[in-house]
C-alpha cells in the first residue's frame, strides 16, 4: 500500500469513540481484533492514518475494550492469567462491541 504514511506504520494507533474520546493503543495489541486488523491493513483511510473512528462505540465501552487489548497483549504468552474486571452494567454493551470487532471468534477458538 503505497499510501501508507508514517502514521500508518507507527507503533501506536488511535481509536476514537462516539463521544470523541481518543485512545492511543499499541498497534500490536489491537491486532487481536480481526476487524481492526483489516482496517489498519486496508488502503483506506484507517490504513493510511492509523486512526479508527467508531461512531457507534461509547467512550466508556471503548475504555474497557482498550483495557482488554492491553490485558491480552500483556498476558498473550502466559498460561496462568488473572481475571479481568468487568463491571456488570457494561456487560451487554461490551458483548455487542466485541461481536462487532470480531473478538468472539478469537475467544471461541
Amino acid at each position, binding site marked *: 500500500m503505497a499510501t501508507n504514511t508514517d502514521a500508518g506504520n507507527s507503533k501506536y494507533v488511535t481509536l476514537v469513540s462516539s463521544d470523541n474520546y481518543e485512545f492511543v493503543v499499541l498497534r500490536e495489541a489491537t491486532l487481536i481484533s480481526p476487524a481492526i486488523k*483489516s482496517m489498519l*491493513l486496508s488502503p483506506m*483511510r484507517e490504513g493510511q492514518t492509523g486512526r*479508527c473512528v467508531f461512531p457507534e462505540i461509547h467512550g466508556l465501552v471503548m475504555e474497557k475494550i482498550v483495557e482488554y487489548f492491553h490485558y491480552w497483549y500483556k498476558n498473550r504468552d502466559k498460561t496462568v492469567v488473572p481475571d479481568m474486571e468487568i463491571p456488570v*452494567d457494561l456487560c*451487554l*454493551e461490551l458483548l455487542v462491541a466485541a461481536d*462487532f470487532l470480531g473478538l468472539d471468534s478469537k475467544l471461541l477458538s
Partner: protein
Amino acid sequence: MASRARMKPIRRPAAKNRETSDFEPCWHLLRSAMIDIHTKNAGGLSFEALYRASYKIVLRKKGELLYTEVKSFEEAWFRDHVMPPIAELITNNLINISLIQAPGTSLHERRQMGEKFLRGVRDAWVEHNLNMNMIADVMMYLDRAYTAETKQPSIFAATIGLFRDHILRNTLSASSQEQLTHEFIVFDILNAVVLDLINMERDGDIIDRNLLKKITSMLEDLYETDEEIDDQKLYLRVFEPRYLQASKAFYRRECERLVRDSDAGTWLRHCRRRLIEESDRCGTTISLLTSEKISKVIETELVMAKLGEFLAMEGSGLKGMIDNDRIEDLSILYELIARVDPSMAPLKATLQSRIMELGLEIEKNLKNTDFSVPANGGGADGDDGADAVDKAKAQPLTVAAQQTAAAIKWVDDVLTLKDKFDNLWSNCFQEDLVLQSSITKSFSDFINVFNRSSEYVSLFIDDNLKRGTKSKTEAEVDAVLDKAIILLRYLTDRDMFERYYQKHLARRLLHNKSDIDTEKDMVSRMRSEMGNAFTSKFEGMFKDMELSKDLSENYRDHIRQLGDVDTKKVDLGIHVLTTNNWPPEVMGRSANQEEGSKVQCTYPPAVKRLQDSFYKFYLKDRSGRVLTWVGSAGTADIKCVFPKVPGKETGPLSKERRYELNVSTYGMIILLLFNDLAEGESLSFEEIQATTNIPPQDLQRNLASLSIAPKARVLLKEPFSKSVKPTDKFSFNTQFASKSMKIKAPTITAISKVEGDDERRETERKNDQTRSHVIDAAIVRIMKARKQLGHTALTTEVITQLANRFKPEISLIKKRIEDLLNREYLERVEGETAVYRYLA
C-alpha cells in the same frame, strides 16, 4: 431486545439509527465503494463505515440478499471490465503456436507472444485478487455471521472463482474480434505456453521466471470448486500432471540423444545438472509442491532408463571410471543411484565383477612373471624389474628367492588394489555400508580363489618383519602390518595361514632375523582380530624364546660357578622349544615324516659333554623332561686357524689366518671331523655320513654351503662341481683366505621361500590331516551337548563353529562322521535316516 433497551445506559445517536436502518442505503454505500475499489479510488473510503454497513445488513437478516448482490455485481464487473482485455490476447496466432505448434515461427517470436499473453493474465489476476481481498475484508461480518452458518463458500471464494469459471474454463472466442479457427479453453493455452517457455529455458534460453511463478501461484490459489478443498488446487489437478508429462517426454528425448551422442561422464554431469536445475525451478518458477515429483521423473527418464547402457560404455563407462579413478564421475554416479536405488544393485554388480577381474588379473600376471623368471636364468642376475628390485642387492636371485619376490608382489598388488577401492569407497561412495560389504566380499572371493594366498600373506609379513628394522621406519612397518591384517581378514583358510606363519615365525625367531617387539606387536594384532585360540601357538613360541634366554644365562652362570672345568671353552646358547608350539619341520621331524623316527646325529665328544652338562643342569629344576637336540635348527660360531701356507711369501696366504666361522650345527659337526684329519687326507660323503649320522639331505646341503660358495669355501670338494653328490670327497682347504674376520656360511634354511609343488602338496596333506582332527573335535563337542542331531543340522553347526578357522568341505565332514560312527563315538538312531546319537 426490549430488556436490552431498558438496561442500556448509553444512548446511540439517533441520526445513525435512521441512516443504517434499511438495506437500500447500506447497499448503496457498499456498491459505490466497490466501484471505487475496482477503479483504485479506495483511499478516501472509511473502512469502518463500510464494515458497519455490511454489519448492519447482516444484523437485519439481509445477509443472503447482500451475498447475492455482491456476487452479481462482481460477475457483471468481471464480464465488462476484466474479460475483454484477456480475450484480445487470445488470437489465432497464439493458439496456432502454443497448441497446434504450427511451424514457421521463430523461437523468439514464440517466447514474445507467450510472455505477452501470460503477462496479461497475470495483471488481470493480480488486480482481481487484490480487489476481491479488499471486498472480502469489508464483508468480513457477512462471512462470519451468514456464509459460515449457511455453509456457503465465503464471499472471497465465490468471487475469486470467477477467474476460473470465466477466464480459464472459457474459450473467450465470442468476444474476440477475429473468428478463431480452433476453440480451446484458455487454461489449455495457458498450460501450453508455460510448458513451452519452461522447455525453452531447459534448452538454455532466458525466460521471465517471475512471470511464470506468478502464474503458477495463481493456479495454486485457485481450486476446482468454490469449496476450496485442499487437494483440489488447479495447480495440482490440472497443471502439474501436464507439467510432469511434458517433462517426461522432454527428458526421454534428451536421454536418447545422450546415449547416442555422448559418453557416460557427460551424461552423469548432465543428470546432476538437470536435477539441480529442476529443483531450483520448483523454487523460482513453479511450485515447491512439484519438487519431489519432478525429481522422480528425471530419475526414471534420465538416470535409470539407459543406466545399463551408460555403465557399459566402452572407455567412459563404469569400468573406465574405476580403472582410471575418475573420482568425480563415480561420486556423481553414486549420488544418482543412491537416490533411486538404496540397495545399489546396478553399481554393486559391476563393482564386484570388476574387482574379481582385477584380482584374477593379478594372479595371471603373477603366473606370467613366474614363468619368465626361470627363463631369465635361475641364479643369474634377475633384471626382471619388479621381481629383482627387492632382493637384487643381497645376492643373485635364486629361483626360490624370485618366487618369494613374486609372493610379495602379489600381496603388494592386492594391497594396491585394496587401497584403490578403499579410496573410491571413501571419496566417491560416501562410505556406503552396502558397497563396503560387497567390495569386501569380492576381495575375499578372489583372494580365496587363489590357492596360495595364505602362504603369500605369511611370506609378505615374513619379508617385512625381516627387513623391517633395517630399511623402514617403525611407522612404515606399522602401516604394512596393518595392511597384512586386512588381508588376513579376507582369508577363509586361516588354519593354512596359521601353519605357514608358524613356520616362518619359527625361522625368524631361531635365526634372530627380526625385531622381537615388532613380532609381538604383529601377533597381538592377530589376536585382537582372530581370537586367542589362533595365536596361542605363536605366543607359546615367544615364551619359549624368553625362557630359553634366561636358561642360557643361568647355565652360563652355573658353569662359571663351577670354575673352568672345561678347558676348551664352548659357549652354549640354547633354545628349548615346546614341541606343540613349533612347526614340525623345525623340530626335525620333516626328514622322515612317518612315526617320528628322530634321527639323532652323533655329536663330537666335546659337544656331547656340553649337552650332558646342560641336560643335568636343566633337570635340576624340571625333572622328567626329555630334551631332543635338533641339529638342523641351530648355529655355531667356530674359531678356526688356517696355518701359513708354505711357499707363499706375500699375500694373505703367507701368514697364519684366524677366522670366526658361523655355520649351522651340522656344519660344525662336519668341520670338527676335519680337525682330526691329517693334512692332505680327505673324507668321502659316505664316510662323513656314517660318522655323523646326519640325514643325507641335510648333509648334502651343509656340505654344499661349506664347499661350493666361494665366500666360505673352507672345504675342497673332489671333483669340483656345482652340486654335492654322494660319491664326492672332501678335504680341508688350506688355501682359504677371506677379507673379513667373521664369515657366515650361507645357510639354506634361513630363507623363507615359496614352497615347491611337492612341498605344497605335503603342506596341504598335513593341513587336511589337522582339519580332520579339528572337525572330529567339533563334531564330538556338538554331539556331546545335543545328544541327538540330524545330519544336516550337524553339518551346518560344524561349519558355523569352524568358520573362524577355515571352510570345511561337506564331503570331509561326512567322512569324519562316518569315521566317528566306526569308532563308536556316535551311532545311528534306529528307524530314522541320518540322525545320530552321541555315545558317552
